[in-house]
Structures are given as structure tokens and as C-alpha cells.
């Protein structure tokens, strides 16, 4: 282990090729910085991170260097507290502040501002500048991000994130010297699906959260708890913040293996359904024709009566926790429990689990995905089906020289600008086998746009080229064959190839083909990495739980349904009695016998299994108004309280279903104590404790108890750093901004201390399922093969209740190839009728070159589709809206 001498004392540090700033921060030294970012590395733009280095022990003068642009080296002598360099840092911040306003008190960043922290850290306390300040006009950037350019200190982080890291092309830096402006060419909605990260990336109040602004609270006034995003299958770790019974915002919660420093805009802003006016807050009971509010006892009595009559089935949900689903299964019995999905969709999930188990190489963490050097994506439009993964693939596609290669190029391995210049935008092989245009097209080496069966044939052809014992695709077209050669060559020669496949294309054949390809890559000796994409936050949880299909469940007389918003009324039309455990009043709820008010993710705790087979625990953030309870608690009531708390339920799940046994390790149990105390959800500075409810009673209420976790609904408790799964906020003395995360990591950019990766699906090297070669696709005269098209804003129903997301969601459409449009005699914007089974949908037509011939892309989530896609649909032009 190398050692470094800081201010005369020797310290050992980890890691080669790191910069001095990272090493100093990892050792716990407070070196101020602005432009360096652990995920985006260094450019040396702000000059804030100055330290002194000395050539040897006889050197008494030393020289000032930028620590972020200097490689740490064994035996290096460094001074941080030297008066000369300390003064240098104070002067740097003084000129960065020359144009900065003096109004932290009205700035949204105040209290969690990196600039505030750094100003205090450097000891710059009084301004000498007495002239006019430079001012700018702010831009209107859409529903999510608020802009206040006067607060800018020109660190360039925003454009480095938005443009260089996330590939956005509408945010830039304009002007030069002391007139630089960070914004868009003109006012308008930020186009990147990751725009919300600007709020956390910008060290000052230039970019702040516009949704939060509407219901603002200071960071220290928010109650926060570790949570997991429920809006896609990726399972990003998040930190929701609540105050006064409402959820105010969602921020990224650093998890090195899952989401790193960034989340997508659906995840950041899609939480507003929690505060929706459609929330059910008391039990509802059908009385005659209408639903009326009822007491819990009355409602539960009715539930028990209804459940006693006729046949019963319980419908679970891939959007509910493992605990909630299991509890329902315990209530109705394993044979009467439905996983909540139509047969076809569940088959896809089973196929994905089988695919994962057939892997032999450990599943890659996010940084491993980012370091893949050849990628093939089968059937996923990632920006819309697993956005966080798309952002990781942007990093994978980019060639980033490793330490040795950087040395050969003569650049430092953390010098972002130099590395980018040296590689000149060079990319690793990235192949897209998808059903339409995607956001990664511009980075792709080659792509194939075709219907899922054709994609499967391509994947099988590649597999055969890598392993001749795999079945051959004999009737492949010349273009596809050439592409298969190319893909096979690129994957074979890669050191870290990555295969991505998911359920989005709706094709079991494609998943089976992925299994063959994975095995063939393995046989070819490449140790392929696999990353799977599942649609919902607990799809994999229900896949492991199993159950009967939705079609079968719907035949029961009485249905008890978890999260009915994922179903259409038609799917359960046959039932006589319906009991809903819902957080929102749905169409199904409206005709239910009883609706029990269920907690959302922010009001409950539980475990979700993400696409990657990771079990992750989320914790209750706040206690909602009304008689809202966790779904599993309602069920426990019905059953007569079999589980005392979440841990008891988890213990039963582990005993009943061994596959879930590792899940108990996802977080410490409820009786865990840090320094003998619970971990407070509120900060010690939280204001208004005694005043908040004084209009009701002047006596301070006793904080609600939390029997399910080691967290407390209080500002009192342990003040140390808890283990990673329990970290309720990132804060450390002197570090009020999100940059405090540095102090929670084992070392800067690495895992949080005492983190866990709790896998319930592991690579087992089991035999991949057989993959017969599908016949070549033959377009039909009278119909189109209707394929699903996904939208970040629009295909997920709960997030559509966020007004900003609804505003950005597209109108429903059917896209088809211009040649097919011409054949069917339909023109842009005209209406067509698509008949899928019994249902006829009338939609506007969008002719698009990227749609495969003979197919149509239908926006899912925006229209109710009767059956799982793909499906043949008769299309007729000339319909009227």
C-alpha cells in the first residue's frame, strides 16, 4: 500500500492512478473543490483544490498545484494547511464569489449548498468587491429544473454532466471570459431524461428542483429515509424527503453498484402520485350503489364476510413489495395466488430468470457495465425501459483509456478533457438489435431494426458463429448474415463483452436466443456479462414467487387485488366481489366492495427485487394522514395478526420460500441499534417540532413508533454514520450539500461503508432453455404485427400523475413504416383503427422510417391494450377520432 505525507504525517492510501484530491478526501481531509466530480473526474477548471507539494524533505518552499490534476504517488509530500496555499484557496473563492449574489437566505440551494460549505471551509468571510455584479437573464427550462444564472461560479460541471456524460445536446456554455452562460440556445424544456441531476451536480443554486420549489422546505427540515425507486425495474436507490405529511422531493441515494450518483427524471419527479387528490385515506365500503368511508373494523368485517363466500383469488402485483405479495399469498393460499400478470407476460419473466440462472459469470455492477468493451442490446429501448442503464451504456460505449493506456498516451488517467481529446470520441463496439429508433443509435457501431423474431434469428446466428455447435440459422438474409459476422467478431475479441436482454419486446424467442448467445460467448471463452431488463420494480420478486395467471384468477367469484391500477377493468370484469388494497382510487376500486387504503412506497417498508436479482429494502419515510397502512398489515389484520412486524414476516418468507432467504440480509433488522439508539429520520436541526401541531394541541405529540425498522420518526437518536442500507441522509460536519456522500464511502467513488449486495437470483450455469430458430418474418397483407413502444414519460401509470410528466408524455399513436402507410392508404396524422382481438383502437398515424416493415409501434401505457404485445392487428385507415 502506497503512503503519502500530508502536513508532516504519513498516511497509507488505496488505489493506483488516483488524483491527490481523491486521496486527501478519502483520508478524511477537507480539501475544497468545485469542478472535480467523482463520476466525471477532473478538468482543473475552478482552481479551488490547491495544495502544496514538495520535491523532497529538503524542499521547504514547495509549489502550489491543483490536487485534482496531480497524480498521488508513493512518498509524496503534501501540505494542505500551509498558510500560503490556504490563502491561495481563500483568494480563489473570493474571486469566484465576486459576482455571486449575497442572498443565501432566499436561495433554494441554501443549507445544502456546496458553495456555502466551501466558502466556510476556506474561511472567506468578508467581501472586498464593491462594484456592480454581472447579472443574467434566466431561462425557462421546462417543468423540472429552475434556472438562476447569477449564482454560477463557472465550474463547468453542468455541461460536463449533461453534454459529455449524458449525451444531451441542448445545454451548452456560451460566451467567454467573465461572461460565460450555461443554458440552452433558447428557452425550452431540457431534452435529456437525466436533466434533474443538474440539481445535484451544480454546486450552487443555478439549477434547482422546480417541483420542490412549489412545496419547498430546507434540507434540514425534511424527514428522509433510504428508499428505492419503484418506477422501473432498475431499482435506483433514492432519498425521498417529506414534511408535514406530504412527500416533497426525491433525490439520488448513492449506491455504487446500482445507480452511482445519478437517477433519471421519471424517478426524481414521478413521485407526486403520493400527494395525489385521488389517494384513498380511509377504508371505503360499498353501501347500496356507492362507496362510503368506513372504519377499519367495519371494513375488515365486510372483507372477512366476502372472503368466506364462493371461490377467492388474490391478485398480487409486480409493483408491490415481496412482503405484500407474500402476505396476500398467505391469505388466499399458494394455489389461489396470482402474480398479477397475464400468462404471456409471466412466461417472459420466467424466461428471464432462467436466462439469468444460466449465466456463469457474475452479474456486472454498474461500474462493470460502464467498463464493458463490447455490447449487444437485444430488444430494449433502454432510455425508456431502464433509463439508468442507458446512462451507464453511454459510458461503456465511450473508449476510456485505462491507466496503462493513459500513460502511453502521456495523459493522466483522471484528466477528463485530455482523455476525451486523446480518444477523439472513439467508441467501443455497440450493437443494437431493436424494434425502432433508440437514444443510443448515434453511438451504435451497427444496428438491426426488426420484429422480435428476426432479432432472435440474428442473435442465434451470432451464437452459431461463436459456437458452431449452436443451431445455425440457414435462411438468414445477406445483410443480417454480414451483421452477424461483425457482431460475432467484435464480441469474440472483446475482453469484457456485455449482453443486454429484457422483456420489453414481449418475445420469449428473443430471450431464449439471448440464452444461446450467452452460452456461445461462454464457450468461446469470453466470460460474458449479462444484464437483464424487467419491466417493474418487483417483477423479479413475483417471478420468484410464482402463482396462477391473471386469466385464471379472474375466473374466481371474489378477487382481492393489490395495486389495482396496474390492471384494466376489463381484466377483472367477471368477478362478483372485489376487494382492493389500493393507494389510489382506481376504475376497479370504484366498483369494489371494499377498498382498503394502502401505503405507497414512501409510507411503507419492504423489499423489492430489481431486474438484476438484487433484493433491496426501502423504508417508510413518513406517516401519512388518514388510516393508511402497509398492504401486508391490512392482510395481517384480516388473518388475525400472524406477524408482529416486518422482520417476523421476512422470517416466515425465508422459511417458506428458501429462494428469498438471503433477503433478510438486505438491511439490518428492526432491533438493530447504532450506539444503543435508533437512527433518526429527521436532522437534529429540524425546525417547528413544538409548533407544528400547536393549533391542535400545545402538547407535543409523542413521535409515532416504528416497529419495522431501526429508524425513528424523530430528530433524536444516534448521530453516527449507520450502515449503508440505513443511511437516511448524506450529511457530515462541514458538508451540508450532497457532496457529503464522500464521507460515507469506503473511499471516494467506492461503495458506501457496510454496504450489501443481496442477490436472490444468482448465475448458476444451468442449461439455457432450448431456442428453436423462429421462422423468418412474413409481413401480412391485412394486418401489422403490433409491437410495444415505450416512453419514459407516459408508459408508467403512477408517474403520469406528476403534472410535469403528464405534460411531457406524447399523445397515443401508432407508428408504421411509410411504405406500409402508403400501402394502407393512410397519411401523417390521419386516424387508423387497429383491431387487436376483440378491441378496436383508434389512433393517429405517425409514419416513421425506423419502424420495421410489416410492423406497427404502439405507444404502451398511453392506450389500454387488450392483450400482451406483440400481436397481429388489422389496421384500417380513414377512421375518425
Amino acid at each position: 500500500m502506497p503512503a503519502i505525507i500530508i502536513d508532516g504525517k504519513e498516511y497509507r492510501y488505496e488505489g493506483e492512478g488516483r488524483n491527490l484530491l481523491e486521496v486527501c478526501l478519502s483520508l478524511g481531509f477537507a480539501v475544497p473543490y468545485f469542478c472535480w466530480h467523482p463520476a466525471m473526474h477532473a478538468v482543473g477548471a475552478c482552481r479551488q483544490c490547491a495544495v502544496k507539494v514538495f520535491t523532497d524533505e529538503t524542499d521547504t518552499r514547495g509549489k502550489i498545484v491543483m490536487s485534482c490534476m496531480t497524480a498521488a504517488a508513493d512518498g509524496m509530500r503534501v501540505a494542505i494547511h500551509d498558510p500560503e496555499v490556504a490563502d491561495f484557496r481563500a483568494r480563489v473563492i473570493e474571486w469566484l464569489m465576486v459576482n455571486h449574489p449575497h442572498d443565501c437566505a432566499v436561495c433554494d440551494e441554501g443549507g445544502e449548498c456546496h458553495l456555502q460549505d466551501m466558502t466556510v471551509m476556506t474561511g472567506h468571510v468578508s467581501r472586498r468587491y464593491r462594484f456592480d455584479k454581472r447579472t443574467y437573464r434566466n431561462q425557462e427550462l421546462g417543468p423540472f429544473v429552475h434556472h438562476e444564472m447569477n449564482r454560477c461560479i463557472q465550474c463547468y460541471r453542468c455541461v460536463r454532466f449533461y453534454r459529455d456524460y449524458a449525451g444531451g445536446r441542448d445545454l451548452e456554455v456560451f460566451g467567454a471570459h467573465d461572461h460565460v452562460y450555461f443554458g440552452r440556445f433558447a428557452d425550452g424544456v431540457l431534452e435529456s431524461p437525466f436533466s434533474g441531476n443538474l440539481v445535484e451536480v451544480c454546486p450552487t443554486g443555478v439549477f434547482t428542483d422546480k417541483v420542490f420549489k412549489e412545496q419547498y422546505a430546507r434540507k434540514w427540515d425534511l424527514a428522509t429515509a433510504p428508499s428505492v425507486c419503484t418506477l422501473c425495474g432498475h431499482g435506483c436507490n433514492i432519498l425521498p424527503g417529506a414534511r408535514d405529511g406530504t412527500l416533497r422531493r426525491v433525490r439520488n441515494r448513492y449506491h455504487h453498484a446500482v445507480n452511482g450518483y445519478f437517477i433519471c427524471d421519471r424517478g426524481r419527479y414521478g413521485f407526486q402520485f403520493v400527494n395525489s387528490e385521488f389517494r384513498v385515506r380511509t377504508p371505503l365500503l360499498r353501501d347500496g350503489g356507492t362507496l362510503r368511508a368506513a372504519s377499519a373494523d367495519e371494513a375488515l368485517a365486510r372483507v372477512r364476510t366476502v372472503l368466506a363466500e364462493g371461490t377467492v383469488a388474490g391478485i398480487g402485483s409486480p409493483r408491490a413489495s415481496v412482503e405484500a405479495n407474500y402476505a396476500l399469498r398467505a391469505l388466499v393460499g399458494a394455489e389461489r395466488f396470482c402474480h398479477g400478470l397475464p400468462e404471456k407476460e409471466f412466461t417472459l419473466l420466467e424466461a428471464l430468470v432462467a436466462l439469468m440462472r444460466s449465466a456463469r459469470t457474475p452479474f456486472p455492477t454498474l461500474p462493470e457495465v460502464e467498463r464493458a468493451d463490447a455490447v449487444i442490446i437485444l430488444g430494449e429501448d433502454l432510455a425508456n425501459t431502464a433509463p439508468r442503464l442507458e446512462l451507464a451504456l453511454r459510458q461503456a460505449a465511450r473508449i476510456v483509456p485505462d491507466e496503462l493506456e493513459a500513460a502511453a498516451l502521456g495523459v493522466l488517467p483522471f484528466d477528463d478533457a485530455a482523455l476525451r481529446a486523446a480518444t477523439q470520441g472513439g467508441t467501443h463496439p455497440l450493437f443494437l438489435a431493436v424494434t425502432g429508433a433508440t437514444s443510443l443509435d448515434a453511438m451504435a457501431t451497427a444496428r438491426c431494426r426488426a420484429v422480435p423474431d428476426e432479432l432472435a434469428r440474428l442473435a442465434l446466428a451470432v451464437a452459431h458463429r461463436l459456437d458452431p455447435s449452436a443451431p445455425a440459422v440457414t435462411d438468414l438474409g445477406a445483410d443480417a448474415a454480414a451483421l452477424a459476422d461483425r457482431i460475432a467478431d467484435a464480441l469474440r475479441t472483446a475482453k469484457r463483452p456485455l449482453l443486454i436482454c429484457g422483456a420489453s419486446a414481449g418475445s420469449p424467442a428473443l430471450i431464449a436466443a439471448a440464452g444461446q448467445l450467452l452460452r456461445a460467448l461462454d464457450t468461446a471463452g469470453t466470460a460474458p456479462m449479462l444484464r437483464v431488463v424487467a419491466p417493474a420494480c418487483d417483477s423479479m420478486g413475483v417471478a420468484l414467487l410464482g402463482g396462477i395467471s391473471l386469466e385464471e384468477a379472474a375466473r374466481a367469484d371474489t378477487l382481492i387485488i393489490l395495486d389495482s391500477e396496474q390492471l384494466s377493468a376489463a381484466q377483472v370484469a367477471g368477478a362478483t366481489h372485489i376487494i382492493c388494497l389500493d393507494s389510489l382510487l382506481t376504475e376497479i376500486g370504484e366498483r369494489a366492495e371494499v377498498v382498503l387504503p394502502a401505503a405507497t412506497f414512501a409510507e411503507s417498508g419492504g423489499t423489492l427485487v430489481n431486474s438484476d436479482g438484487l433484493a433491496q429494502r426501502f423504508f417508510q419515510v413518513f406517516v401519512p394522514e388518514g388510516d393508511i397502512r402497509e398492504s401486508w398489515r391490512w392482510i395481517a389484520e384480516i388473518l388475525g395478526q400472524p406477524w408482529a412486524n416486518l422482520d417476523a414476516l421476512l422470517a416466515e418468507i425465508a422459511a417458506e420460500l428458501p429462494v428469498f432467504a438471503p433477503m433478510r440480509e438486505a438491511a439490518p433488522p428492526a432491533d438493530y441499534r447504532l450506539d444503543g439508539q435508533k437512527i433518526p429520520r429527521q436532522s437534529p436541526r429540524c425546525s417547528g417540532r413544538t409548533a407544528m401541531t400547536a393549533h391542535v394541541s400545545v402538547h407535543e405529540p409523542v413521535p409515532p413508533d416504528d416497529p419495522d425498522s431501526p429508524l425513528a420518526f424523530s430528530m433524536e437518536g444516534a448521530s453516527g454514520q449507520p450502515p449503508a442500507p440505513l443511511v437516511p441522509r448524506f450529511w457530515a460536519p462541514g458538508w451540508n450539500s450532497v457532496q457529503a456522500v464522500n464521507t460515507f464511502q469506503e473511499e471516494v467513488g467506492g461503495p458506501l461503508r457496510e454496504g450489501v449486495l443481496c442477490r436472490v437470483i444468482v448465475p448458476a450455469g444451468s442449461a439455457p432453455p432450448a431456442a428453436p430458430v423462429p421462422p423468418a418474418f412474413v409481413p401480412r397483407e391485412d394486418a401489422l404485427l403490433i409491437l410495444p413502444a415505450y416512453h419514459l414519460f407516459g408508459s408508467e401509470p403512477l408517474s403520469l400523475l406528476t403534472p410535469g410528466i403528464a405534460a411531457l408524455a406524447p399523445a397515443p399513436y401508432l407508428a408504421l413504416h411509410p411504405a406500409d402507410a402508403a400501402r394502407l392508404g393512410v397519411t401523417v396524422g390521419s386516424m387508423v383503427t387497429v383491431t387487436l382481438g376483440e378491441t378496436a383502437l383508434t389512433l393517429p398515424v405517425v409514419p416513421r422510417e425506423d419502424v420495421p416493415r410489416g410492423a406497427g409501434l404502439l405507444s404502451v401505457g398511453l392506450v389500454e391494450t387488450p392483450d400482451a404485445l406483440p400481436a397481429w392487428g388489422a389496421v384500417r385507415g380513414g377512421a375518425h377520432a
Partner: protein
Amino acid sequence: MLTEQERHEIDEEVAAVRGHARAAVVEALKVVQRRRGWVSDDDLRDVAACLGMTPAEVDAVATFYNKIFRRRVGRHVLLICDSVSCWIVGYHALLEHLRARWGLELGATTADDRFTLLPVACLGLCEQAPAMLLDGELYGNLTPARLDAILATHE
């Protein structure tokens, strides 16, 4: 709308950098400015479309260079040197004269669209300071009288 000729010239600039359109941005902007005197928002959008770039990407370059004009300028653009040599030997007097006699303000265009006055860093003509650049021509050893004589020839 760009003219056929402008498009053609921009294509040639792109060809000159072996098809790396992004490397031709500055030259493409100069093509437009040569004829129109400045680059309007609409022109900038057209240049962006020509090069397969976004308006933001092109404007980031355009606004970085102080001699790509993103606002309308007069018929004649006068760049007056405000760097050290010129500053020592009479920049202020010239500036005052331009203001008093010709109504020129730094960063502004005269009402009759005749002149735009802008500051510029050292023109490399220190030995003949104070100096200026008028429509691309260098003039040194300036005095108010000499300035009057030069400006008078620029209608």
C-alpha cells in the same frame, strides 16, 4: 435561409476538414458573416442544420469568439485596441473623441447603422499605438484628427 452559394461554401469548408462537420463550425459562421455582416438566430439554426449540429452546439462556438457577431452590426465595424500600449498612449482620448464627435459608444451601433464600436485586445501594432482595426484594416498612430479623416471616408 442560406443561399445556394453559402451552402456550397460551407460544404467546401466541411470537405476541407475531411468531413468532420464540427471542425468546420467557425469557417461556416464566417461564410455567413462575410455576406450578412453578422449571424442572426435564424442563420445560426441554418448553419447548425447544415452541419448536423444543434443550435446550442453552434452557438457555444459562435459566442466564444468575439469576432463572430451575434447581434446586428453597422456597415463598418471599428475595433479599438484597449490593451496596455494603446491604453498608455491615448486610448481614452480616442474613445472620448469617438463618443463626442461621432456618437460612438463601446458595444453600440450608431442610429444610422454606419458604425459599430467594439473593444479589442492588442492588435500587435504596439509600435504604432494607439491602434484600431476598421473593417479588417489596421490603422496606427491615431490622433483625433487622423481618426476623423479615416472615418470620413467610410460612409
